[in-house]
């Protein structure tokens, strides 16, 4: 679980260790990554909205 989130966060900034990448691609099921990526993106957008609201406040 934590491993998946870590990989998604690494993908968000575009920096990943090769060892971790090979470990991720050893898994057969992409569903966990997809769900985690959508959730992380949603949280990121919500944070942006919050920051924008504080700035405009």
């Amino acid at each position, binding site marked *: 679980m934590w491993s998946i989130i870590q990989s998604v966060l690494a993908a968000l*900034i*575009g*920096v*990943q*260790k*090769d060892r971790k990448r090979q470990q991720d691609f050893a898994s057969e099921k992409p569903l966990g990554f997809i769900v985690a990526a959508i959730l992380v993106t949603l949280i990121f957008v919500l944070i942006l909205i919050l920051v924008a609201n504080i*700035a*405009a406040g």
Partner: protein
Amino acid sequence: MRSLWQWLLPTCVIAGANQAQANGWNMPVGVTDISRDIYGLHMTIFWVCVAIGLLVFGVMFYSLFRYRHSKGAKAAEFHEHTSVEVLWTAIPVLILVGMAVPATATLKNMYDTSEADLDVMIIGQQWRWRYEYLGEDVAFNSNMSTPWEQIRGEAARGEHYLLEVDEPLVLPINRKIRFLMTSDDVIHSWWVPDLAVKQDTIPGFINENWVQINEPGIYRGQCAELCGVNHGFMPIVVHAVEEDEFEIWLAERKEAAEQEAMGVDREWELDELMARGEPVYRAICASCHQAEGQGAPPAFPALANNAQLIDDLDWHIDRIVNGVSGTAMPAFRSTLNPVEIAAVVTYTRNAWGGDTGDAVQPASIAEKIVQ
């Protein structure tokens, strides 16, 4: 050698920046707090970019030179370096956020048009600006006053060639002035660099902006949105004056407007109308229909020796009051007052050998405008 460079480089850079300012290559510092903020942001971000550029290209060219193939340099074969990659992702993010914080603060301030002391409506028209002091019953058109002889190269160019108008926008200093900006025809853009205002005026929309000018002076600008053949001939001139001087000017303009309104009801002589009509023709009509009414067919029909115009007075008046849809001829019912329309109709019917003798009365025009 190194000490020479340490001294020479910053000196050259600062001298260059000052030179750019003096030559007008850089943006002006301007005369409002916002224009100064914008200038400060521009310079801060400029120097950030200079520093990044020097650093990145310095490292790059040094590496190219120091580790060149002819000296037997061998490429390092490694796949990744996570901490360096994280670092060169994080540093630009911090720089961008660092620039965004002050920029956002300035932007917020720019959009805050609340609590203005004075509202001025700015209306773009092909090809002039119209200014209306809301709630003050003062409104006028601001036409370029550069003579056509200068534009055609028949006379020497004046000091403020293409940047001079018959009626400047007069504004008080030290007061928050809100601009309500729109257009009667196509998109124009009201741009005065010293006030840091460049705002599109869009038909059917009202854009807001505001200024608070710190220093009295004359500030010039231009239409910044391509709006037709005379786009280059609708300059902006702002006279920023002391507050008491502004009050005197406003009172004079109000009085003049009242005088003009009273003039609608009385009978006007032909000579009077001709004298009043000529400057209106020059300011409003001549840019399309030309100085001697010869026009520029087919877009701009001739007015001199125009049989239909001479024969049909009502048709003539209707063209000016209501415009001609689908052509460049706008309706002047709200741009010119009845006296001005009567005078310019009279002028075009009697100048250039027309000699109809028609003295069109402002009262009759006022009736047509109400219809």
